[in-house]
């Protein structure tokens, strides 16, 4: 398949989005490896960076988080995969607004460039973390990178907001208006439900982030005082001249930030549902409930943002309220997980690579999800906040679950795009090493966190002994992270060779039922649900959605 620059073909754009995410993930991973090496050998000189100063470490954290969250986890599973298959899955002839869609991609690419440019301006990249809390982020003299670097960060994320907003408008109109006749709500593949919910979330929350960014930018350059408190002393100078409220930024940011994590993970949940049904040859029991729970998670996700702010000085009663809503969100999440287990239970599992990665997704979703309700207790969070415990939580539930869903999607749709299969043995090897190394990297972080190790600290000064007990733990994490990163070379190699020399895929290689695998996109009505597999009778019997319902049934 040839890619034209400025194409409006949704499939080509999907591939471009995935390539963009690949660039971002490579950059982000390299940054994280530097951090991990620094943590165990603080005096090591790294190429390009030299020995890392505390502010250098903060710049690494900031850029790592921003790249991964925005340009990988928000981009690939949502708009990337949706461009790849969404129109086919609903039987549309294409996206509703192809040019708008293409514009969204190029804006995203521009945003990535602007972000990476922050490394090359005087004083380098910003240091205030992916959450950019003021006053650090509001005052240029607050630290290196908070001048030009921070401005570039703000510009990049503002462009990203606009791009996601355009992409979401296009996706919503496509899902609502372009479905094929007969593609009713209860016949939509679960991925489409997930994209529907994430697009709505995108529209609602990225607009708020954009507003917050404008306010912050104005504080930095136009002398307003939205976020900087009175008498705020930065580097020996009083910078605060009004009763600005840093909490205001936290509220606005996390109103965006929490739904954002669901934007990253919901598409994976939809995909996992489809893959479980396919590779277990089972119908999705309680399809309507599963779909409704996706919507419920999306809606509840809009009212839980305060759980990131328990120790911020927010009113404690508000903390209690947010703890309650947060616990409530565990309910639909649990229903989803139980729904998946029901599909798997007694299914005839075909453990092909995409299925393995979907199972990996499930395992991380549960492993990381279990610590969520712990962190949602204000009393426990007072101790755990900003420790590595939180880092463990979100790397398992968001980062690893998200990345595994991306892998599952790529292994699954690869034949659709390239006409060839990916190598199965390399795929399995890739899966097992990645699974073990991922747990090896992120699970022990719980222990560091419980021991009190804070996040975003380059090293801990003070009595040498206080953290010596976790030094071995830290070393283990670093070696595991190195293994995790190198295992991805297997994946890249697999893609690279399979594109040219992989086994040629037959039509519908996974014996799937959803429309993207239809042999031709005729114009018939859809008369079947998305997951009509039937093992009790015969494993090979299934009814794809492009098949007409026969009258005898």
């Amino acid at each position, binding site marked *: 398949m040839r890619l034209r620059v400025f194409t409006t073909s949704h499939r080509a754009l999907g591939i471009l989005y995935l390539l963009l995410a690949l660039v971002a993930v490579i950059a982000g991973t390299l940054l994280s490896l530097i951090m991990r090496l620094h943590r165990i050998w603080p005096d090591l000189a790294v190429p390009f960076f030299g020995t890392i100063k505390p502010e250098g470490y903060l710049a690494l954290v900031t850029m790592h988080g921003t790249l991964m969250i925005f340009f990988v986890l928000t981009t690939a599973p949502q708009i990337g995969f949706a461009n790849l298959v969404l129109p086919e899955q609903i039987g549309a002839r294409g996206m509703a607004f192809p040019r708008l869609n293409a514009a969204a991609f190029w804006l995203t690419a521009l945003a990535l460039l602007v972000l990476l440019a922050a490394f090359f301006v005087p004083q380098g990249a910003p240091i205030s973390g992916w959450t950019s809390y003021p006053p650090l982020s509001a005052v240029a003299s607050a630290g290196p990178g908070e001048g030009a670097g921070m401005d570039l960060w703000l510009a990049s994320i503002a462009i990203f907001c606009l791009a996601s907003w355009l992409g979401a*408008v296009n996706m919503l109109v496509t899902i609502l208006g372009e479905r094929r006749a007969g593609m009713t709500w209860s016949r939509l593949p679960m991925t489409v439900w997930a994209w529907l919910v994430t697009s709505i979330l995108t529209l609602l929350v990225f607009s*708020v982030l954009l507003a*917050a960014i404008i306010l912050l930018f104005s504080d930095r350059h136009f002398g307003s005082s939205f976020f900087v408190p009175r008498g705020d002393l930065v580097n020996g100078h009083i910078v605060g001249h*009004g009763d600005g409220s840093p909490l205001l930024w936290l509220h606005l940011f996390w109103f965006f930030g929490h739904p954002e994590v669901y934007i990253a993970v919901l598409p994976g949940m939809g995909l996992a549902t489809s893959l479980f049904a396919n590779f277990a040859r089972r119908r999705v029991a309680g399809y309507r409930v599963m779909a409704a729970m996706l919507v419920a998670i999306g809606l509840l996700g809009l009212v839980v943002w305060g759980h990131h702010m328990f120790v911020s000085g927010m009113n404690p009663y508000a903390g209690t309220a947010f703890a309650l809503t947060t616990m409530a969100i565990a309910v639909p999440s649990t229903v989803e997980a139980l729904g998946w287990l029901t599909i798997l239970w007694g299914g005839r599992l075909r453990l092909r690579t995409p299925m393995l990665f979907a199972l990996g997704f499930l395992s991380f979703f549960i492993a990381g999800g279990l610590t969520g309700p712990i962190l949602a207790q204000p009393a426990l969070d007072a101790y755990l906040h900003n420790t590595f415990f939180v880092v463990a939580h979100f790397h398992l539930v968001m980062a690893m679950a998200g990345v595994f869903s991306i892998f599952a999607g790529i292994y699954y749709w690869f034949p659709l795009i390239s006409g060839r299969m990916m190598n199965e043995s390399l795929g399995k090897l890739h899966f097992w090493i990645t699974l073990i190394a991922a747990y090896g990297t992120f699970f022990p972080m719980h222990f560091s966190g419980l021991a009190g190790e804070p996040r975003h600290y380059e090293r801990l000064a003070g009595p040498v002994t206080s953290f010596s007990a976790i030094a071995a733990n830290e070393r283990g994490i670093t070696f595991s992270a190195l293994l995790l990163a190198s295992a991805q070379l297997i994946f890249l190699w697999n893609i690279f060779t399979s594109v040219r020399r992989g086994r040629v895929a037959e039509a519908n290689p996974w014996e799937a039922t959803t429309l993207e695998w239809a042999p031709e996109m005729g*114009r018939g009505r859809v008369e079947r649900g998305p997951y009509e597999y039937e093992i009790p009778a015969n494993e090979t019997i299934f009814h794809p959605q492009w098949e007409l319902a026969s009258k005898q049934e």
Partner: protein
Amino acid sequence: MPATFTRHPVEIERKDTGIGGKPPLDRRPTGGGGDGDNWENRPSGRRGPRELLTRYRLGVLFALAGDLMFFVALVSAFFVRQSAGHFDARENYVSDWHPLAVPPILWINTAILILSSLTMEMARRQLFHEIDVMDEWLGLGRPAVKRAAPWLVATFTLGSLFLAGQWIAWKQLVQQGFRYNSPDPSSHFFYLITGTHGIHLLLGVIALAAALGALFILRRIELRQIVVDCTAWYWHTMGLFWIFLFALLVCFQ
């Protein structure tokens, strides 16, 4: 190959712009009202002359929903900032928020904007006037365009007047010593809210000019309808947003 696989009759694909070869009227000519005439059951791209219009309307609707959240965020920031204060050395609560009296000219501007929504609606209606649409569709001149254009020009003028009025209001405030960066947060918010709304309106005025041009350039009545219709919904929404924002600035200082 899957065991049970049926090919279904493939309709011959026509190159179709989603307009459907029927006049874009409100009334749906059902021609007997059988099942086959329900446009929802047709493949997309063949769902009647209103399909494209519906698609663009939906797009504008969603975009505006996102935009609404943008203003909601600004308004909530307004309230949070208003209630932020500090305690001085004697433990008195002091707030740096001093209510700002909006320049009276804003009342005139608001009236102008409401008026412009009316003219906009008049322009929009012309393009859905059945007899004229039929004429245009059949290629018998462009009566709808002729009637809509003056209303569009009127809206454009009123919109520009509104923007000019806002500009005057800012000038007046600056003369009274309220600048964007004066220490008073209520003045940040005044400029921020009127400013971001003004940018939206500027885009609207540009869209109006473009729509006016498009009326004469576009060849199909269906597309002319879309251009004016979408501009109109955008314009109405901005008017509505303004009324809320203005009420906020006047009553909730």
